[in-house]
């Protein structure tokens, strides 16, 4: 079972667009790996270089430690799934499914065995003699997957396979996709711009921006320990506040004085990107929406369940800008006198009555704060494009 590796790969289009810059990655067999990033970051090009549909300008492409640069796509043992399905409209479901086997000249018995197995795996065996026009988009993609795995390919290469589905279908289909990949023991490499998707079903996520790999690791790592502001912002939902390091240090925490009218927060050193910030150094602190506690102004912390909060949390006073119920969560936007906004999300409905304009208290635990060095251009670092 092969590992896939790229070493020092570069690719430039039309003399100036840098699609890949010094890309190094290793995908272990059996892993479900995501190439994640904004439009134009190079993720699709990387996928195409891995699969052989594009040739790199230089660098090595290795499968099972062998250089495959000269191998055609069809000879690399990969199955490809496309965003727009690319189902052959003039062939039946069956003919589509066995196409890969047929053009390689396999015998009838092999065709029937593998074809039926593939269609059964995706639940389309009953539709074998129909034409694909009977399907909606989810059905078409199921057929696309069946067609890719029927050839016995052990590596599934997918370019935004859920991109053409309606959001609800995307949500349920993604788990089916993961189940299928794991059940068949495949290696999966998937391109997406949707971090939600990558977090939900990926084993490893590779975040790219402008041709470079920014960070690479399992979802938890990227989520809880992003190594750059961009990754912090791109994965999950992140608040950012600027400030600088204050002289006092409490235990294992920094004291950060915020630039928004000066409240001071304790931020855990363990979660800082550089554990040795100097006093007065300008920093940016980051914390997730769901890690923000929201309290009405005169909240009684002696209520059961909130005992230790007063001790452990940082508190910032603010005003409620809006509170919206969005089903799984309630979303808050809090505004400061200086005009900046912080967002928070809480699961389910919020038990306290609040109206826009009400004063509230936001609470953040020090170990939920990640501290970064302040970059030259903060806007650029957290720009999602």
């Amino acid at each position, binding site marked *: 079972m092969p590992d896939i590796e790229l070493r020092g790969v570069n690719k430039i289009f039309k003399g100036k667009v840098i699609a890949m810059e010094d890309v190094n990655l290793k995908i272990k067999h059996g892993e479900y790996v995501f190439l994640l990033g*904004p*439009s134009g970051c190079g993720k699709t090009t990387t996928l195409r270089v891995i699969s052989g549909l594009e040739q790199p300008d230089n660098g090595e492409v290795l499968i099972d430690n062998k250089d495959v640069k000269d191998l055609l796509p069809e000879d690399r043992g990969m199955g490809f799934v496309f965003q727009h399905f690319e189902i052959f409209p003039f062939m039946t479901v069956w003919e589509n499914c066995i196409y890969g086997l047929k053009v390689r000249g396999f015998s009838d018995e092999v065709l029937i065995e593998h074809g039926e197995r593939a269609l059964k795996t995706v639940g389309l065996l009953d539709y074998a003699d129909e034409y694909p026009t009977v399907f909606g988009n989810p*059905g078409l993609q199921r057929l696309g997957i069946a067609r890719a795995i029927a050839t016995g390919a052990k590596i599934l290469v997918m370019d935004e396979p859920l991109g053409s589905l309606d959001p609800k279908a995307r949500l*349920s289909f993604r788990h089916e996709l993961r189940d299928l990949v794991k059940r068949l023991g495949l290696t999966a490499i998937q391109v997406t711009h949707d971090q*939600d998707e990558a977090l*939900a*079903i990926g084993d490893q996520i590779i975040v790219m921006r402008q041709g470079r790999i920014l960070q690479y690791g399992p979802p938890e790592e990227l989520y809880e320990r992003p190594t750059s502001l961009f990754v912090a912002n*791109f994965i999950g939902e992140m608040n950012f506040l600027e400030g600088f390091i204050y002289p006092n240090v409490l235990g294992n925490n920094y004291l950060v004085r915020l630039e928004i009218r000066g409240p001071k927060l304790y931020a855990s050193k363990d979660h800082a990107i550089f554990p040795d910030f100097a006093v007065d150094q300008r920093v940016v602190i980051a914390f997730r929406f769901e890690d923000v506690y929201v309290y009405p102004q005169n909240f009684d912390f002696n209520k059961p369940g909130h005992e230790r909060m007063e001790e452990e949390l940082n508190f910032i006073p603010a005003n409620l800008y809006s509170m919206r119920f969005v*089903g799984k*969560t309630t979303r808050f936007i809090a505004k400061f006198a200086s005009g900046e906004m912080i967002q928070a999300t809480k699961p389910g409905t919020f038990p306290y009555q609040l109206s826009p304009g009400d004063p509230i208290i936001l609470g953040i635990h020090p170990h939920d704060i990640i501290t970064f060095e302040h970059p030259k251009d903060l806007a650029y670092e957290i720009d999602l494009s």
Partner: protein
Amino acid sequence: MNYIPEIRLEHIVKHYRGEGGLNDVSLTIQDGEYFTLLGNTGGGKTTLLHIIAGLVKPDAGQILFDGVDITRKKPYERNLGLVFENYALFPHMSVEENISYSHRVKGYDPQETAQISREFQHMMRLYNREKAIPSELSGGMQQRVALGRALMNMEGSGILLLDEPFKALDAGLRMNLRVEIRNLAKSEKLKLTVIHITNDMTEAMMVSDRIALIRDGKIVQVGIPEEIYYQPANLFVAYFFSDTVYFPGVVAAVEDSSYSVVVAKNVAFKVDNPIAKFQRGGAVVLVVRNDYFKIYAEPVSPEDKDNILTGKITTAKFMGPFIRFSVSLEIGNIIAIDIPSTYGVREKFPAGQNVWLTFNPKKAFLFPDPGEEKLKELYFEI
């Protein structure tokens, strides 16, 4: 016009060969409301928008603004602004020319027009891009130009129609823009009724005052987000808004509004105050949103909680704010539930762990059982 009318659609019908038709649609949209038409592709929402805009004539039915029948009026007589899917920015005109187009074709004073156009550009956070042409702009910027163009047409007040405005943009950008667009619509500088079309239920929930769910040319339910989420009118609506867990069963007993539903041998669940009423013996399907479960590592006594399920964790997947547990239940099914990922949750429930799940009888839904075929159709879309 400086005021915005109440919009009433009455019995709108439009037939198309294939999909996208409308089958007797009636709606009322209040002035100043942020109203969303939500539904899957081909369900008829774009058709409805085009009819409201006056680009398409309905086969039957009326459109009334404040009680006045405007079904025959041209688009520009309806004081609305339309942002098309893919924006439809005039490719041969600059940003400035696009945004100010509406005023130029009406012959307004060029000086004033330039001034107003600059104001709208700033409102849309477009700085120093006046002379750029659409192909030079990013997707997000193009969208803002389209919005600016529509708003300037309405001179800041009127009916704003948005046709899947974020569809072409990356997921991360979409989240930010949803917040922005609602803020913009509700800002004091503008007086807008917004009709927003989308197929994304999270988006609908985030931006709307009210949502109308449309399916195959018919309105399925209309209401504020809480209403639709907590009181779905049918199985489709319940399923549409979140991942759900379902148990087919039979009503065993009814007491006041509390139902006891048998879902498996010796296993009955309690449901309080469902929307529909059922008789004893009725075939039903019990639906619970997959984030409504509470999970325990120790046995739970029926005296403390209702609706207890026992099972074993098979897999756990970190999904950011939630952890998705796959639980193999003793009654046979394997269900997937989402639990908020607070500290220690994953350690507390490793794979193989025996767990007890409970759900609140008030938060479960009860619907008539549509049969295995229909259930399969809904949950396993082909």
